[in-house]
């Protein structure tokens, strides 16, 4: 973990409620895809935990959704503004277990951390599929970005406005071949989706969980959960859990 000042380079609206921010600063502590940063906002007591979407050199990319007043205020931040950020938080995905043909399954605001995972898996020569779920066509973002780095992308929308009608688990069925079509899965999204993915997947995999956090670095025990391998803090031993250790 490191506490550093980042400078906003870009703050761009992607959909009605989803924004992308690029920040320049010391990214050295960000090791794994699936880690998060914790951002201090003026006028709010607790920091805002937001997952890392991408990191390239000293540029950190995050994608955030307007969920409350804090994230709404973030949309008004201008280029050049400085933010106090804790970086390198959480365990992140272990990409070494992916096998040759991993599938990435993301829902809504859970999609961003899978982007860095996809980039790194492709760099290692894996054949990567991404199943991305949204409520409706207007909420789609990053479909092109996943394609540009060499992912095969399957879209699911709950209202059927584009792609497979239904949830990510419905789209997952479309890639199933004789051997289910993938060697391993990485997923992130709302908890009901994670549970559905857990039940629908036929291989091992890793799930990234969300919880209301106090500190984000393991001090307060605010975000604990029970797992097969004992009590874990979502912010420290998580947010990524192996499928085999999850207790619902």
């Amino acid at each position, binding site marked *: *973990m490191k*506490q550093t000042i980042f400078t906003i380079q870009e703050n761009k609206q992607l959909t009605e409620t989803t924004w992308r921010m690029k920040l320049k600063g010391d990214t050295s502590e960000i090791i794994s895809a699936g880690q998060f940063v914790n951002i*201090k906002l003026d006028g*709010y*007591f*607790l*920091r805002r935990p937001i997952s890392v979407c991408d990191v390239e050199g000293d540029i950190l990319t995050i994608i955030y959704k307007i969920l409350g007043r804090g994230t709404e205020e973030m949309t008004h931040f201008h280029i050049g503004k400085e933010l106090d950020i*804790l970086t390198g938080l959480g365990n992140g995905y272990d990409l070494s277990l992916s096998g040759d043909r991993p599938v990435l399954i993301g829902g809504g605001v859970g999609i961003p951390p899978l982007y860095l995972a996809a980039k790194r898996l492709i760099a290692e020569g894996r054949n990567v599929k991404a199943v991305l779920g949204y409520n409706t066509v207007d909420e789609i973002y990053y479909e092109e970005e996943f394609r540009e780095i060499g992912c095969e992308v399957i879209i699911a929308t709950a209202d059927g406005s584009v792609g497979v009608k239904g949830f990510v688990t419905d789209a997952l069925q479309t890639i199933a071949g004789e051997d289910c079509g993938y060697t391993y899965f990485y997923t992130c999204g709302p908890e009901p989706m994670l549970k559905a993915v857990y039940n629908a997947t036929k291989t091992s995999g890793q799930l990234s969980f969300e*919880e*209301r*956090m*106090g*500190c984000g*670095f*393991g*001090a*307060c*025990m*605010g*975000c*604990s*959960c*029970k797992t097969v391998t004992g*009590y874990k803090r979502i912010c420290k031993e998580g947010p990524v859990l192996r499928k085999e250790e999850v207790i619902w």
Partner: protein
Amino acid sequence: MTDTKITLCGIELENPVIPASGTFGYGYEMAEYYDINCLGTFSFKGTTKEERFGNDTPRIAECPSGLLNSVGLQNPGVKVVIREELPKLALVFDKKVMANVSGFSVDEYVYVCERLDKERQVGWLEVNISCPNVHGGGMSFGTDPNQAASVVKAVKQVTTKPVIIKLTPNVTDITSIALACEEAGADGISLINTMLGMRIDLKTGKPILANTTGGLSGPAIFPVALRMVYDVAKAVSIPVIGMGGVSSAEDVIEMMMAGATAVQVGAANLVNPFICQDIVNNLPDVMAKLSIESLENIIGISQEEF
């Protein structure tokens, strides 16, 4: 030359800055981030007889200038603390640690204190009779002078280490509880634990915390804590540790002027993990600006009649 040394129940501290229980783990986790030997000491995570998971999540809710928590004393139990956590701490911390103890019965407090008493690293026992997040124990001992006294008397029989009783602000008259503890043999009083509160999710109409209510901490409660420290320090003759929303060197000095011998920092650690180090580093400068030569000399100066 400024002097930040203070003496707490017979043990000298380099400075009065103490991270509060529940915001600093068992110390070694925070030692990953900075050398925690710069602290006066710290109070480790509230420890019970058996392992506890605590309450369901969500356990955290934000509010202006603070947060609510309903963690509910998650800890690995005293045996594991002694066998695993304290040896890890010993590798990174040369000073005496304050052992925070919780329980659901007088017997449990006694059991945990008796075991921690034998640990050389433990300097003080901070007995928490004020946790608002557990039922059938914790705070119920801290809301009645007789029950509070019964815990103090029982614990004092099994330890030679200084016993500091941590009090809840969720009472009508905190000084009567403090006085009962002093009379029963307590060596110090620490206050305040968190204040009971709640938040509701406007979209669902349901409480945000799974436990419905939680304890409020952070700068929002500082003036309340300061007033209670002032009242209790005036009433008792044993040392008082002040806490509640302390976030700066200035806050530390204000607490000490109100009557605190040492000062704990809680919620602020969760926002800035380096805050206690910053406070320790800033203290000499702030003292110099205020022409304070020795912190020991300002303890309770606000109690004097002007």
